[in-house]
């Protein structure tokens, strides 16, 4: 439960208030959109990938603080990285958020992104944190849109908002 309080620590609230790398890149060579139809989280992501390196990255979006902060911190962590390094982070973030990777006990490259570890205790919020990373994965693979629902659902059965 203390993890849950940590989730809303200053760094996440700060990124929610002042998202970094916010805005469109007009000449981007990679673009994808991610959508969580259940809560309205919506992320648009643009990148320029040159010689296997992510030269620039930016996003726009609407959503909860967890989603926006996750997107903002993701762009900071990814900028300048090789595509393979970004893919590794996607996998590690996803594992941390779903509770299969303990960022303090197992080797990883997550760094500051560890502030999102607390979502693993909130199945209904895992999708919020992961959506930007799904979108990044899609953009790197030239898919244009992803959804947190259906086959791509990271936590089936954890839908929020019904009844």
């Amino acid at each position, binding site marked *: *439960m203390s993890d*849950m*309080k940590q*989730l*809303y620590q200053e760094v996440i*609230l700060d990124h*929610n*208030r002042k998202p970094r790398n916010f805005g469109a890149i007009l000449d981007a060579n990679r673009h994808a959109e991610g959508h969580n139809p*259940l*809560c*309205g*989280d919506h992320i648009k992501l643009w990148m320029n990938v040159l010689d296997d390196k992510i030269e620039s990255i930016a996003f726009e979006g*609407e*959503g*909860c*603080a*967890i989603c926006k902060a996750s997107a903002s911190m993701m762009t900071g962590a990814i900028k300048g990285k090789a595509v393979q390094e970004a893919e590794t982070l996607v996998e590690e973030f996803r594992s941390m958020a779903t509770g299969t990777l303990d960022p303090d006990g197992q080797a990883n490259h997550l760094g500051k992104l560890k502030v999102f570890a607390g979502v693993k205790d*909130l199945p*209904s*919020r895992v999708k*919020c944190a992961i959506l930007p990373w799904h979108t990044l994965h899609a953009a790197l693979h030239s898919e244009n849109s992803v959804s947190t629902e259906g086959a791509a659902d990271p936590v089936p059965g954890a839908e*929020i*908002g*019904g*009844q």
Partner: protein
Amino acid sequence: MKVERMNIERINIDQIRSDFPILGLQVSGKPLVYLDNAASSQMPQVVIGRIVRYQTAEHSNIHRAVHYLSELATKEFEAARVKVQHFLKAKESREIIFTRGTTESINLVMHGYGRAFIGKGDEIIVSALEHHANIVPWQMLVEEKGALLRVIPMNDAGELLIDEFEALFNAKTKFLALSHVSNALGTINPVKKMVAFAHKHGVPVLLDGAQAAPHQALDMQDLDCDFYAFSGHKMCGPTGIGVLYGKAHLLEKMQPFMGGGDMILSVTFEKTKYNVIPSKFEAGTPPIMAAIALGEAIDYLNGIGLANIEAYEGELLAYATEQVSAMPGVRIIGTANKKAAVMSFEIKGVHPHDVGTILNIDGIAIRTGHHCAQPVMQRFHVPATARASFAFYNTKQEIDKLIVGIRKVQEMFS
């Protein structure tokens, strides 16, 4: 509404709260504040005890067997049906069909009535504030039959526009499916008048009573609706049990929903003769324990008095509305003149899911999301809302905790 006017003399709140073991729970080290009653209510000890007694000393499959337990279980199951009959003031117990819940009740009417009596070019009317359970089945029917779905619009307060409702009727109108009370907005629709208008056009009416049944006295003779659907778990009973009330003459001419045991009189490979109502619609072994527990929940609610519950919850809503309306940066969504104890709201600049997660840290349980009413969210231009919904076991002090929680959210996000 002044706090001092709380109806303590009619509702013994301390006694009532002690009836519900779960209300003593600690969440995150804080006393549980359960404000998600529109999604599912909690269960008093008498109902829990009834389940234990049934499973300990009464359980068997019902109907047909001649042994002691089967006769006892059958008697208790049918007694529960009579309790529901009286709860609804239905004319006969055979007008009460046990289902798994409101959703199944509505689907039963769609299959049993809709597929038999609604055809190409016909029109079905629903309202803009329906739960998905009272939209999707009718959409499925409309697609299958080549019929048309018409929607009663609402105003910014979340009230249906009655003039526009009346204007929707024409010779092709064949059915009206309408919420008694909106789960997302709390609006209590003027269903008696609307049923009467539909009947003037010869149109049968189904009322989705999921949000009404636990909060006010119901009288099928007064409402005069043709079908009424509700769920046990929203009225202190267990999940897995619901009710469809239907007028006998309509149920009799409807086709069965599911085929199987109990719903037949005789079966050969050439021809099956269907059973009479209600058995015709209760194929397979029903949720016996859950039905009996629902009967116990009805006894419990009657013991408190539905009129007392309605008055007390009305005061809780008035208190919460007054407090929240006075908060800068908070907007109540759904401000109908007649409302049940449901308060949807949004905090400026904060997504409802963040509101829900932060309140949960203090043990406060609300629901956040689209409440299975996405068209309602679209109407109010919000992706989701936060929703506090009250029951007769909630208190003014719990609403105060909600208010403190909302302030805390605003401070965190300021």
